[in-house]
C-alpha cells in the first residue's frame, strides 16, 4: 500500500516536471542567496580570527586607557607594580592606495614573534632602522618605499598587517611614548595590587584589537545578513506558491488514496518525507548556487573591507561544514515552513469533503482581519524595538517590523482598494474583473507581498545609495578644494617643495597629521594652516560662532561627524587630545567613507605637541587652467613618481571608485531580490491557474472569447502589480528614511540628507508592471489555447 501510495504521489511530479523544477529552483534560490551571504560573512570573520591568531595572543584581555591616552609611563608603572603586561602600539599607515595596519610590539615581552628559523640578529630588529615583518603579498604591495625599514617576508601574518618592534612603530607612526593597549599576559604573579589602584585610568577589556576590525565591520556584515534574510523570505514565497499548487492538484489523489484505506497519518508522513527529500535536494543545489554567488562577490567584498576598514580578508573561499549544515538547515526549515499549510490541510482533510473553490488559499475574513491587526502591531513593535533596544540592532528590528507589517497590511489594503473600485465600476465586465480580482487576492497575496518587499527594498536602498552618492559627490567637491595634491618622499623634500611652490602657487596648504587615540579609539589628528580654502569650503554640519577664528587661535578643535556621534562631542564639549592638551569642540564636519575618528586643530598647535609629524603632503591652490602645467613643472623639478602628484579630478574619481565598490554587493543583491519576487508572482499565478477554470468557464459560457479572457488575465496581473508598486513607493521611502537616519548613523556614524529620484520610481513601476505582465503571459497563453472542451468539462464534473 505504501509503495503504491509513493508511486502515486511521485507520479504527480512525473506529469508536472515544470512544477518540480520550480519548487526545487525556488527553494534553491532562497537557500543560495542566504548561503552566499553566510559564506561571505563566515569567510570575512574567519579572516579576522586568523589574523588574530597569527598575531598571537592578541585575543586575550587587554588594558586600554579610558580617555584614550595610554603612555609608556603607564606600562612601566604597571610592570613596576608586578603586572605582567605587554605593550602594543598600533596605527594605520597609508602606502599608495593601501591602508596597512602597523602593529608594534615589544619583542622582549610579546608572546609570539614571527621569524622562526630566520637568521636575524636581535640588534637588526630592535635597533633603528628595525625590520618590518609582513606576509609576501603585503611586502609586494608595499613595494620599494625607500623610506621604510627593510621588509622581512613571513607567512605567519595576515595580509595587510605589518608587525614590527615597538620602537620602529613609534618612529614610523611618529607617536613617541604612545601606546595603544597593553596585553595582559596569562601568567601573573601572586598577590598583585589591584588594577584600580595601580592604573586607575585604565580599563580591562576582554576584546583585543582584532575586535576593532570586527566592530568596524559589524555593520557591514549585519547589512549583508539582513539582505540575505530578505532574499530567503522572498524565496520562500515561491516555495509556498508551488507547494500549495502541488497540494491542490493532488487533492483528488489524496482523497482517492485515503478512500483506498491509506491512513491519514501515513499519508501525512509520506508527504512530509517527500517535502524533506525535495528540501534536501534543493538545499544542495542552493549550496552550489550560494557558493558560486559568494565566490563571485567575495573579491569585491574583500576589496571593500580592506580599502574602507583596513580589515584583512582573503579573496579565497573555503567550504566550511558549518556553512553546509546551516544552508541545508535553512532549506529544510524553509520548506517545512512554506509547506506547513498544505501538510496540515492534508492531515486534517475530511475524507469525503467537497472541494471548496478557494480551499487551499487560506483566504477568510478572519485571516484578513488578523492581517489588518498584525500589520500595525508589527510596525509598532519595530518602533518599540528602536526605542527599547536602540543601536544598529534596534534599527534593523524597526526595518523588519516595518517591512513585515506593511506586507501583512498589503492584502487588506488591496482588498479595500478593489472594493472601492467595484462600487464605482460602470460596466459588467469591469465589475466582474474587480470582483474576480478580489477573489484571487488571497491566493496571490503572498506573491504580492514578495513583490512589495522587493520593490520597497529596491526603492529604499536605491534612494539611500543615490542620496549617499549625491551627498558624497557634493562633499568631495567641497572637501577636495585644492587643485593639486602632492606627496613627497621625505620631510626635507617636502620643505623644498613648499619653498619652491611659494612664489608659483596661490597657496600651499600642508596636510599633516598625527596618529593618536581620541575618546578611546584610534583616530587621526590633523593640523591645518589658517586659510580661506578651509573657511570657504570645509563641510561643517554644526559649529560655534567664529569657529575658524577659534581654531586658528588654537582655542578650538574640529571633529568629524563619526567621532562627534560616537563620543557625543558636539560644539562646546571638551576633547582630550593628548595628556595635558584639552580643547573645546568648535565645530563638527562631515567626513564620509572614513570609519575612523578625526579631529582638526591649528597646525602650530599640533606642532607644539607633535613636533615631528611628517610634512610630506600638500594641497596646492592655483587657477584650474594652470594646474596641469604646474603639476608638470613639479614633476620635472622634483623628479616625483607619477602617483605623487594627483590632480583634484583624479582624486575625486578614485574616491568615487571606492564608494561604488562599497555598494557593488548591495546592488547585486537588490537585483537578485527583484528577480526572485517576479518569479514568485509567476509561480502564484500558475498555482491559481487550475483553480481559475471554474471562475472563467461561466464567463466564457456567457460569450466572452478566450482571447478576451486571456487579455483580462494579463490585465488583472498588471493591475495588481501596479497597485502593489504604488503601495511600495511610500514604504520604500520610509525604508530609505530609516536607512539614512537610523541605520547609517549607527553603522557608519554619519547622517545623510535624503534626496528623491522620481525617475527611478517610474523605472521601477514599469518594471513591476512588466513583471506582472510577464508572469501572467504564460497562464494567459494557456487560456487562449485551451480547448473549449476543457472549459466545458468544468460544468460536467466538480473536482
Amino acid at each position, binding site marked *: 500500500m505504501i509503495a503504491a501510495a509513493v508511486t502515486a504521489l511521485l507520479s504527480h511530479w512525473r506529469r508536472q516536471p515544470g512544477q518540480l523544477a520550480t519548487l526545487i529552483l525556488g527553494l534553491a534560490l532562497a537557500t543560495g542567496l542566504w548561503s552566499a551571504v553566510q559564506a561571505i560573512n563566515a569567510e570575512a570573520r574567519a579572516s579576522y580570527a586568523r589574523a588574530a591568531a597569527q598575531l598571537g595572543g592578541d585575543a586575550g584581555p587587554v588594558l586600554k586607557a579610558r580617555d584614550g591616552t595610554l603612555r609608556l609611563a603607564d606600562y612601566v608603572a604597571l610592570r*613596576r607594580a*608586578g603586572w605582567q603586561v605587554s605593550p602594543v602600539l598600533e596605527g594605520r599607515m597609508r602606502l599608495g592606495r593601501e591602508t596597512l595596519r602597523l602593529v608594534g610590539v615589544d619583542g622582549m*615581552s610579546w608572546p609570539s614573534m614571527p621569524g622562526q628559523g*630566520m637568521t636575524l*640578529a*636581535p*640588534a637588526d630588529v*630592535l635597533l633603528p632602522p628595525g625590520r618590518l615583518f609582513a606576509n609576501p603579498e603585503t611586502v609586494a604591495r608595499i613595494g620599494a618605499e625607500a623610506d621604510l625599514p627593510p621588509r622581512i617576508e613571513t607567512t605567519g601574518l595576515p595580509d595587510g598587517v605589518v608587525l614590527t618592534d615597538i620602537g620602529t612603530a613609534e618612529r614610523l607612526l611618529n607617536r613617541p611614548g604612545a601606546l595603544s593597549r597593553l596585553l595582559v599576559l596569562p601568567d601573573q*604573579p*601572586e598577590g598583585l595590587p589591584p588594577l584600580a589602584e595601580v592604573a586607575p585610568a585604565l580599563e580591562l577589556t576582554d576584546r583585543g584589537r582584532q575586535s576593532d576590525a570586527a566592530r568596524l565591520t559589524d555593520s557591514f556584515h549585519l547589512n549583508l545578513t539582513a539582505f540575505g534574510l530578505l532574499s530567503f523570505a522572498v524565496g520562500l514565497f515561491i516555495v509556498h506558491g508551488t507547494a500549495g499548487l502541488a497540494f491542490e492538484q493532488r487533492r483528488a489523489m489524496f482523497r482517492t488514496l485515503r478512500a483506498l484505506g491509506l491512513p491519514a497519518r501515513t499519508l501525512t508522513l509520506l508527504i512530509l518525507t517527500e517535502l524533506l527529500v525535495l528540501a534536501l535536494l534543493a538545499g544542495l543545489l542552493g549550496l552550489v548556487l550560494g557558493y558560486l554567488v559568494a565566490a563571485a562577490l567575495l573579491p569585491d567584498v574583500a576589496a571593500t573591507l580592506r580599502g574602507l576598514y583596513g580589515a584583512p580578508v582573503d579573496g579565497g573561499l573555503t567550504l566550511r561544514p558549518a556553512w553546509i549544515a546551516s544552508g541545508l538547515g535553512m532549506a529544510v526549515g524553509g520548506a517545512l515552513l512554506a509547506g506547513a499549510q498544505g501538510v496540515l490541510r492534508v492531515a486534517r482533510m475530511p475524507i469525503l469533503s467537497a472541494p471548496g473553490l478557494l480551499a487551499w488559499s487560506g483566504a477568510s475574513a478572519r485571516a484578513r482581519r488578523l492581517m489588518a491587526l498584525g500589520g500595525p502591531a508589527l510596525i509598532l513593535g519595530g518602533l518599540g524595538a528602536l526605542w527599547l533596544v536602540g543601536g544598529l540592532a534596534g534599527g534593523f528590528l524597526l526595518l523588519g517590523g516595518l517591512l513585515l507589517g506593511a506586507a501583512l497590511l498589503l492584502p487588506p489594503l488591496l482588498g479595500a482598494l478593489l472594493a472601492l473600485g467595484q462600487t464605482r465600476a460602470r460596466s459588467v465586465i469591469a465589475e466582474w474583473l474587480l470582483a474576480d480580482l478580489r477573489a484571487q487576492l488571497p491566493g496571490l497575496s503572498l506573491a504580492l507581498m514578495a513583490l512589495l518587499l522587493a520593490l520597497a527594498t529596491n526603492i529604499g536602498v536605491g534612494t539611500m545609495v543615490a542620496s549617499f552618492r549625491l551627498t558624497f559627490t557634493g562633499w568631495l567637491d567641497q572637501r577636495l578644494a585644492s587643485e593639486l595634491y602632492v606627496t613627497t618622499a621625505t620631510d626635507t623634500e617636502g620643505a623644498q617643495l613648499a619653498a619652491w611652490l611659494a612664489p608659483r602657487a596661490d597657496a600651499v596648504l600642508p596636510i599633516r597629521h598625527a596618529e593618536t587615540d581620541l575618546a578611546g579609539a584610534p583616530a587621526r589628528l590633523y593640523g591645518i594652516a589658517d586659510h580661506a580654502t578651509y573657511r570657504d569650503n570645509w563641510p561643517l554640519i554644526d559649529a560655534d560662532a567664529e569657529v575658524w577664528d577659534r581654531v586658528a587661535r588654537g582655542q578650538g578643535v574640529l571633529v568629524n561627524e563619526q567621532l562627534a556621534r560616537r563620543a557625543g562631542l558636539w560644539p562646546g564639549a571638551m576633547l582630550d587630545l593628548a595628556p595635558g592638551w584639552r580643547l573645546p569642540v568648535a565645530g563638527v564636519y562631515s567626513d564620509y567613507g572614513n570609519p575612523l575618528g578625526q579631529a582638526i586643530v591649528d597646525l602650530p598647535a599640533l606642532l607644539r605637541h607633535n613636533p615631528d609629524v611628517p610634512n610630506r603632503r600638500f594641497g596646492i591652490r592655483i587657477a584650474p587652467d594652470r594646474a596641469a602645467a604646474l603639476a608638470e613643472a613639479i614633476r620635472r623639478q622634483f623628479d616625483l613618481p607619477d602617483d605623487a602628484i594627483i590632480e583634484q579630478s583624479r582624486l575625486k574619481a578614485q574616491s568615487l571608485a571606492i564608494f561604488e565598490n562599497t555598494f557593488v554587493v548591495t546592488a547585486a543583491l537588490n537585483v537578485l531580490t527583484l528577480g526572485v519576487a517576479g518569479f514568485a508572482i509567476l509561480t502564484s499565478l500558475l498555482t491559481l491557474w487550475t483553480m481559475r477554470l471554474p471562475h472563467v468557464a461561466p464567463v466564457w459560457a456567457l460569450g466572452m472569447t478566450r482571447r478576451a479572457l486571456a487579455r483580462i488575465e494579463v490585465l488583472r496581473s498588471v493591475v495588481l502589480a501596479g497597485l502593489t508598486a504604488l503601495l511600495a513607493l511610500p514604504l520604500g521611502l520610509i525604508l530609505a528614511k530609516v536607512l539614512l537616519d537610523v541605520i547609517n548613523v549607527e553603522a557608519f556614524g554619519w547622517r545623510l540628507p535624503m534626496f528623491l529620484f522620481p525617475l527611478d520610481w517610474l523605472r521601477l513601476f514599469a518594471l513591476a508592471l512588466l513583471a506582472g505582465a510577464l508572469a501572467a503571459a504564460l497562464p494567459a497563453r494557456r487560456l487562449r489555447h485551451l480547448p473549449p472542451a476543457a472549459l466545458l468539462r468544468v460544468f460536467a464534473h466538480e473536482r
Partner: protein
Amino acid sequence: MNARLLILLLWLPCAALAQGFAGLGTDAEGFAAPDPAYRLDFPKDHGPHPEFRIEWWYLTATLHGADGRDYGIQWTLFRSALAPYEGEGWSSPQLWMGHAGLTTPDRHFVAERRSRGGIGQAGVTGDPFRAWIDDWEMTGPPVGIDSLRLSARGREFSYNLTLNADGPLVLHGDAGYSVKSRDGHASHYYSQPAYAVAGTLDLPGGPVAVTGNGWLDREWSSQPLSATQSGWDWFSLTFDGGARMMGFRLRDSAGDYTAATWIAPDGAAEALPDGALTVEPLATSGVEGRDVPTRWRVRLPSKAVEVEIDALNPQAWMATSFPYWEGPVRITGSHSGKGYLEMTGY
C-alpha cells in the same frame, strides 16, 4: 663565572625575540674589553657598564627556616647590550632579564622577567645602589652595598629579605680581573660573599621566617667563551669555620679549566690558578629528562679541602628560557657547611 656569561651570549637575545633568531654574533666589536690594568672603583662599579656586552648582579642565599627546614633563593639581574651605549626609550640597545628561584627540600619555584632598557622598567644605579626589573628589587643603603633589601615574586612564591654584609668585598683573580680560559678570556669579577640574611619566604603553604647566608656576585665582560667549552660547574661554598670558597670548572673538549678563590674568615682573598681545584661528579639525578650530577667531590688540596657536595633538592632546575640547574647544597667531609651549585650544559 663564565657560566652566566654563556647564558647571556647564547640566549638572552634569543629569548628576547623568541626562538626566531640565531645567536648573537660572537665578535665583541665595538664593545669594551676587560682590562687587566683596570682598578675597580666603588660605588661606581656597583652600577652598570653599558659599554660592555654582558653583566650581572647575581645573588644566592642558603637559608634556614623557623619551621626547621632548609631553603635557598636566587635573585639575578642580567644585562645584555646589542650595542655599546645606553639610549632613551625603546631605541635603547640594552636588554635586561631577571631570574628568581626559591628551593625547598621538595619544591623548586622559578620565575623570569624580561625588559628593554631605556624605559625604566628595569635597570641599575650604582650610587645609591639600586637594581630592579618589574617589581623585583635589590636596593642598597645611601652608599655602598653593605646592606640590601631584596624582593622577588613569581606565580606561587615571593620573598622579602634583608641582607647585611659581615666582611669586605672580595675581588676575584688579579684584583678583580678574572681569567676564564687558557686563551685569555676574562671578565671583571667581584663578590660580597658574607651577607647575613633574614626575612620571609611566601610559599603556597604560608609564610616562613628565614635566616641564613647570602652571596652576591658582580661580573661584566664582552667576550664569549671559547667554542670548545660546553658548560660549567660552579660552586660557592660557605664553611662552618667562617672560610669561604668560590670555584668553577669549565668543561672543555680541549681540557677542562678550573679556577678558585679562597676567602679566609677575615675576608682576605687568595686566587688559585687553573688546576688547583678538582671537582668530580659522584652521582647524578634525572632532572627534566637529563642526567645532572647532584653529588660531587670537591678537592682544593692547597687548602686541605676534600668535601662532598649534596644538593638540598636535586630537582632545582631553572626552567627559564634557557634552562640550567641552580640550587642550595650541603657540604660534608673535611669541612662542613652550605653553599650554592650552578651547572649548565647538561
